[in-house]
């Protein structure tokens, strides 16, 4: 068995019991007979795998939990605001055509009403002026005077 192959197998997990039993036995026999591979196995186990496996677990400082809680609360607040904003936007976007149609209808109605009112007003003014003019023109009418003779005594002073 070539040393290079044995070293590859050692790196691939023979030290972790990942190999088939017959392969493990063959490698063990080679290592016993080969000082170079024996040294390689020893360094792999003592200098690499053992320090890695025995390293102490770390614990995060207390402030990390506080930061996590604050971040979750901050995101929740933003989410609530976003939802509110979305609803507002949705309200306006969805109802825009309805608003436009309602505004157009209102304006049309207002225009029609204003036009009719003005027409009525104009007619009232013109009727009044016509009546007034008729009255003033009638002041010079001679047919009117004979009735004066029928006035009661002293009534002319009231004219």
């Amino acid at each position, binding site marked *: 068995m070539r040393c290079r192959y044995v*070293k590859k197998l050692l*790196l691939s997990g023979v030290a972790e019991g990942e190999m088939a039993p017959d392969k493990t036995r063959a490698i063990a026999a080679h290592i016993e007979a080969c000082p170079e591979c024996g040294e*390689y196995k020893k*360094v792999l186990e003592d200098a690499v795998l053992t*320090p890695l496996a025995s*390293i*102490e677990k770390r*614990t*995060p400082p207390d402030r990390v939990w506080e930061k*996590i809680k604050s971040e979750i609360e901050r995101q929740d607040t933003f989410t609530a605001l976003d939802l509110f904003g979305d609803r507002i936007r949705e309200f306006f976007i969805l109802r825009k055509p309805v608003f436009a149609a309602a505004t157009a209808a209102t304006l049309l109605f207002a225009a029609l009403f204003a036009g009719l009112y003005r027409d009525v007003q104009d007619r009232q003014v013109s009727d009044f002026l016509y009546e007034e003019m008729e009255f003033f023109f009638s002041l010079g009418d001679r047919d009117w005077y004979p009735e004066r003779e029928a006035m009661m005594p002293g009534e002319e002073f009231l004219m």
Partner: protein
Amino acid sequence: MLAVPEETLKKAAAGDMEAFEELYKLSSGYVYSVAYRVNGNPEDAEEVTQEVFVKVYRKLGTFSYRSKFSTWLYRVTVNTAINVYRKKAREKGRKISFDDGVEVADPKTSGSALRDLEKKDSESLVMSMLAILPEEQRACVILRDIEGLKYEEVAEAMGTNLNTVRSRLNRARAKLMAAYGKKEDENEVPVR
């Protein structure tokens, strides 16, 4: 090994903050440790831990109990840690310093530094070893050799297949051995 009661998970998934705090207490050590080993410094580890638990809070409702919660959590942690690591690496022009270790950016020169650190405390030694490795290989070593996950669990946590995990672990360990002056090639065995 990380174990969170299913009842706690279900309560936390329903938005129960007390249950979520219990979940945090039970699992934050695992998350923070992995994040610290991947990123190499406490500041980034805190950032990753915070990001992971906010994601867990938001996504726990979608967690299917078909897989183990621990594997799912490791997956979220490894992905977040590697993303933060890469982001910081881009920002700093691929010069990220590990605490008490050597720079990841230059693995060729880190071998001798590793040998110098052999006599130091185990924490510095481990961080220096991890600093030699590219992030994907580093994550595999952390999950397998530090956290003690099975190969299948590492594959699930990394979102890859078993052969890729074996290959990454093989290459990672070969690099670490090379840093100790131990090469695979029988004709190139240097003297320490």
